[in-house]
């Protein structure tokens, strides 16, 4: 397999390691890592808290089972160095106090090696201090908060692009392609929305912004008609949105209702067509449906689900079909599979003698070389715990997204640069056995 990326050498080596999964599986009987919490010679116990019930459950509850699908695949093929991954994901209903309790349960009772894929800024920041003092890695938090890369919390790692990075890349696109047009913002009044707006504001001239509307996720009970009316009366031609999928739908519906069709530019968080489309089916007896999404601009750091020719999408489909029965292929499950696979890469890189520090080392020193479905490499280093730091801009047509820009990488405050590398391919063993 030829890799033209600047990291091709390492990636090649990684492929070899990956291929070793199945073979090494049974071979490693004993291990000296019995002293590491959550690790025995035959098992690795990890956990997470995610919302499985309550208002945040729609959509988000699909992620953890998709993460686990990867682990099930790994376990079915012998595990990582003979160790099967035991993934305990508990419901916290997006309530930080519950997260605090459940994470203690995971650490003290279940003795997890690490939390992998805990979801949400409020719940996960609530346990960030605890996990760090307990020296339990908080890996790949499902949130784009900038707080995961913080020297105070060396055990925390983000994964998805942070919200400011998303905002910057989409802001640049607006600046370049909608110069002079009036721009309105619609954002969730929390860390997500505010981080995204911070990114937008770095790129879009303040004079261009005519209205800033927000909504509160905790009181989202119906259409965002008021916000939409305000954006319309301000004459916003472009509406940049930091919205969760439900809010995207609840904004697009009343807008269509009053015949307001601005150019939508939506954060990847709330722009996944298979997730948002069905929410729009209520528009005029379901006829219009996802037509409302046509022309929507968003950003993506994973390949589009609709691109069934993409080998990562094919692998993801196969994994879901076999190990997460009944789950649809959408933004949530694709996200879960990619995240789960990232962790498997980390385990493999950490090697046979798995300890907390070997795991952390693997991510900090080699994370940038992990083979993942991401369009950009992970940027992990000893000083950077963000994860993906870039994306491409995509446009939705007929329920599918297609890129309309090259892939960009950036940081919170640095310049936006073109990414010239090539996306990695799934290792052959994954492609063939999944």
């Amino acid at each position: 397999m030829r890799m033209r990326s600047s990291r091709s050498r390492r990636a090649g080596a990684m492929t070899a390691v990956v291929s070793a999964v199945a073979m090494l599986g049974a071979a490693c009987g004993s291990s000296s890592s019995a002293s590491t919490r959550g690790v025995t010679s035959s098992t690795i116990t990890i956990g997470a808290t995610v919302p499985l019930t309550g208002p945040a459950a729609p959509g988000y509850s699909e992620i953890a089972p998709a993460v686990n699908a990867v682990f099930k695949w790994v376990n079915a093929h012998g595990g990582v160095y003979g160790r099967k991954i035991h993934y305990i994901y508990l419901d916290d209903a997006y309530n930080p106090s519950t997260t605090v309790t459940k994470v203690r349960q995971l650490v003290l009772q279940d003795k997890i090696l690490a939390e992998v894929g805990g979801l949400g800024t409020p719940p996960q920041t609530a346990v960030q201090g605890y996990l760090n003092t307990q020296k339990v890695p908080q890996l790949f938090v499902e949130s784009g908060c900038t707080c995961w890369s913080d020297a105070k919390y060396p055990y925390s790692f983000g994964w998805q692009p942070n919200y400011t990075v998303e905002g910057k890349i989409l802001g640049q696109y607006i600046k370049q392609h909608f110069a002079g047009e009036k721009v309105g913002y619609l954002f969730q009044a929390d860390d997500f929305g505010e981080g995204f707006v911070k990114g937008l504001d770095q790129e879009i001239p303040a004079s261009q912004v005519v209205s800033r509307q927000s909504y509160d996720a905790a009181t989202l009970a119906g259409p965002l008609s008021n916000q939409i009316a305000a954006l319309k009366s301000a004459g916003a031609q472009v509406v940049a949105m930091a919205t969760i999928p439900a809010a995207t739908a609840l904004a697009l519906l009343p807008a269509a209702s009053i015949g307001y069709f601005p150019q939508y530019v939506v954060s990847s968080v709330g722009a996944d067509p298979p997730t948002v489309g069905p929410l729009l089916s209520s528009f005029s007896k379901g006829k219009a449906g996802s037509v409302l999404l046509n022309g929507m601009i968003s950003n993506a750091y994973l390949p589009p689900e609709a691109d069934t020719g993409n080998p990562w999408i094919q692998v993801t489909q196969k994994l879901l079909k076999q190990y997460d029965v009944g789950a649809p292929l959408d933004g949530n499950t694709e996200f879960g599979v990619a995240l789960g696979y990232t962790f498997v890469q980390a385990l493999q890189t950490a090697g046979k003698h798995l300890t907390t520090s070997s795991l952390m080392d693997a991510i900090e020193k080699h994370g940038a070389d992990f083979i993942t479905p991401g369009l950009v490499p992970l940027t992990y280093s000893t000083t950077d715990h963000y994860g993906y730091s870039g994306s491409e801009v995509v446009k939705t047509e007929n329920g599918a997204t297609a890129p309309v820009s090259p892939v960009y990488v950036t940081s919170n405050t640095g310049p936006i640069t073109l990414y010239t590398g090539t996306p990695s391919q799934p290792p052959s063993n994954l492609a063939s056995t999944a």
Partner: protein
Amino acid sequence: MAAARLPSRLRLPDQPMLRHLVLCAGALVLFYVLTVNLSSYHNYQVGLIALFAMVIAGLSVLTGINGQISLGHGAFMAVGAYTFALVQEHVTLPLALELLAAVAASAVLGLVVGIPATRLRGPYLAGMTLILALGLPQLADKYNSVFGGDEGLHPSQLVAPGAVDPNRWFAWITVLVAVIVVALLANLVRSHFGRAMRAVRDNEVAAMLAGIHVGRTKVLAFVVSAGCAGLAGAFLALSGGVVTTGDFPLSLSIYLVAAMVLGGAGSLVGPWWGAIAIVYLPQWSTSISSDFGLGSAVAANLALVIFGLVLIIVMMLAPTGVQGGVRWLARRLLAARFPRPPAAAGVTAVAGFPEPPAPATPDMRTEQERTHP
């Protein structure tokens, strides 16, 4: 309260204050033995139970003794928690004073809510407190520069002395405070003020005629109850070292009332049962449903199903709550051991557990004025 109905054979001191002291000392010894035998995580949960017992006990007095309902105790907890965290952020005080500040702030809110509440009947009061439970925490979202927004405020956690497990230390402090709170409430309930609260609950007009200041009694009950909630909120902040609005969803307030009635309204032992239910029931039901090999998403929903069923079943089988059921059981066991003439037993069980004899209403008076929840 709890001891009042037990047969005198237990030979507790008759003087209420003394009796409460003896009971509390017993409870503390029991908790000590419990905590040293439990794992760190279970100690943490004991602490959680104790902090929930504080707020539920306050609620039990408000509703069970004084007849006022609150679906907004989550908001009082939020005020306590945020006050605690803010005080800690801006000034350096001993822990006790920080806790007192939390109590004071929530008590003040209790006063503000309690005054309009005096004129409201049950469901109207329920409506008012419910919307407050939803609205008040949102203020912290609105003014997130003060209240820390999504990442919240981060009060420092308890520092355990020496080799004591921090969770065990947390359990000890919380249980100690909770037992003190419950003992104080028990004395309050036995006091003049307690009699006034009951009189107001039973009949406001009669209470007024008996010279009780009805409004003042109701407001004060609200203040006391809100103070307990604020203290519990501060301990919640201590327990996780973080305070965010998400900690105080509407469902929290509703769960608190449910737990209070589940334990037994008006009882001060009942709140501990209610707190155990809040802390353990979701966990037990999740593990039960995952034992059946169900996926987590289904298991999580089944946990809701089981929690809902438990609420329904307990209310139908034990109308006076778990504590009522326990008392009934204890009486039966004691009666079996020390048989007494049936006449003394007074009432006969009709279905499930006996109730105190319903106030006999030989005239038609009650029908026009049916009481309300």
